[in-house]
């Protein structure tokens, strides 16, 4: 039997969260309908209020104004996402991280050209893909002809990655991370689970969540934080094991 079948895949994770959320929010059809909608190229669902790009733009403007430290926040925000995208082109995980770091450095140096016409992640994604392709060409390998959509690139297929990655140790660590998050979310009180799912999975704004859950925005903010904090406490020990990795 395939080892990946024993552990929760991302799609199964989403189904579990969706099922839990659906059962806990049946009194509010608005929240349930949102779960089945399609994602845009930025990972957001159509019609949702995209707040995060404003954060990105504010950080970009600070970097352009000379605050180099603000770029560190953008790196920490997108480091996993961009490395995951690059892993679609480069299958050695250590090499992936090198290329991702180079992509961030290139993005920083080219940030003066960023005018905010596109979203920052879309722009960063293109730099990452180009850097990965250039890396393959420099190594004498042929880059793939088909580009991966920015939204689909991070949607993860564990089976594919298990075949491609250089060692199954990384894949097991990833699955362990997913298992902990899924188990923690499942154990959360209904109101916390609903709030964090509507925010992270469906991309609703605090205002939309407050309407869906029938509570003030301040309560939504508190619930989302408590849910995150609970997951973070379980996740932190696992992140400690990251230190021994190359």
């Amino acid at each position, binding site marked *: 039997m395939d080892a990946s079948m024993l552990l929760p895949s*991302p799609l199964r994770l989403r189904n579990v969260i969706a099922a839990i959320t659906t059962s806990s929010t049946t009194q509010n059809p608005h929240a349930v309908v949102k779960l089945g909608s399609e994602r845009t190229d930025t990972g957001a669902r159509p019609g949702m209020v995209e707040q995060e790009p404003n954060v990105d733009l*504010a950080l970009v403007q600070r970097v352009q104004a000379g605050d180099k*430290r603000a770029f*560190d926040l953008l790196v920490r925000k997108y480091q996993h996402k961009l490395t995951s995208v690059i892993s679609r082109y480069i299958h050695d995980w250590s090499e992936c991280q090198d290329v991702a770091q180079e992509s961030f*450095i290139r993005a920083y140096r080219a940030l003066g050209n960023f005018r905010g016409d596109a979203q920052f992640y879309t722009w960063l994604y293109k730099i990452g893909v180009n850097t990965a392709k250039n890396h393959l060409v420099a190594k004498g390998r042929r880059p793939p002809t088909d580009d991966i959509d920015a939204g689909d690139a991070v949607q993860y297929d564990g089976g594919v990655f298990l075949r491609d990655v250089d060692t199954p140790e990384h894949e097991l660590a990833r699955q362990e991370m997913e298992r902990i998050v899924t188990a923690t979310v499942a154990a959360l009180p209904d109101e916390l689970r609903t709030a964090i799912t509507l925010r992270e999975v469906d991309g609703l704004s605090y205002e939309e969540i407050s309407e869906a859950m029938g509570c003030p925005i301040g309560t939504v903010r508190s619930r989302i934080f408590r849910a995150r904090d609970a997951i973070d406490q379980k996740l932190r020990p696992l992140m400690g094991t990251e230190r021994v*990795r190359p």
Partner: protein
Amino acid sequence: MNNELNEQISAFADGELEADPARFLARRVSTDPVLAQTWARYHLIGNCLRGETCPPLRDGFADAIRMALDTPASGAGREATGWASRTLRWAGGAAVAASVAVAALLVIPVGPESTGGTSTPGVLAVNQSEVAPSGLREQDLRPDLSRAAHTVAATRRSQPLMPLWVPNANGQSQLIYLPLQSGQYGAASGKQQLSPLMPEPLQPIQPPLRDAGSR
């Protein structure tokens, strides 16, 4: 206090913080490693919930980028911004082009003496014997400059004039100027390429009558 700060980071990660607190918090998070890691983990949690997980990154992934950017060679917008870098790049290209042109002038042989008598490709060699014979002499095409120059009207200055001695009604020679027209003679004689400018009508220049009383 820490929970309050983390709650602010949580709201900031969602883009739900007001502009001023967000600016203050961004500065604080970017200078505090513990808060920066919290910021990173909150985003990682979101990735996990959306099924966008990846294997853990190596320790110090973001720190290595920050250190690389702290080197003096790095700068935001360094690659393509700034007129100075663009000007330097343009000037460098122009200098290379100029040096190539000078090298080409020095290396490539120019002129018949450098060809050593052999025909250069692309240059049509014409033998003198192949030129159609003409009844004109070289002197016929030259004005007589032995006489004092006459004043020429300043009209039609743009059209070239040719001096010509012709006999007048009294039997004396008289200097006149004929306007030259392009190619007229050549078209008639088949030597259009050899004499682009010729007077019309073309008559051999008669020698001036130096002594009218001798007739």
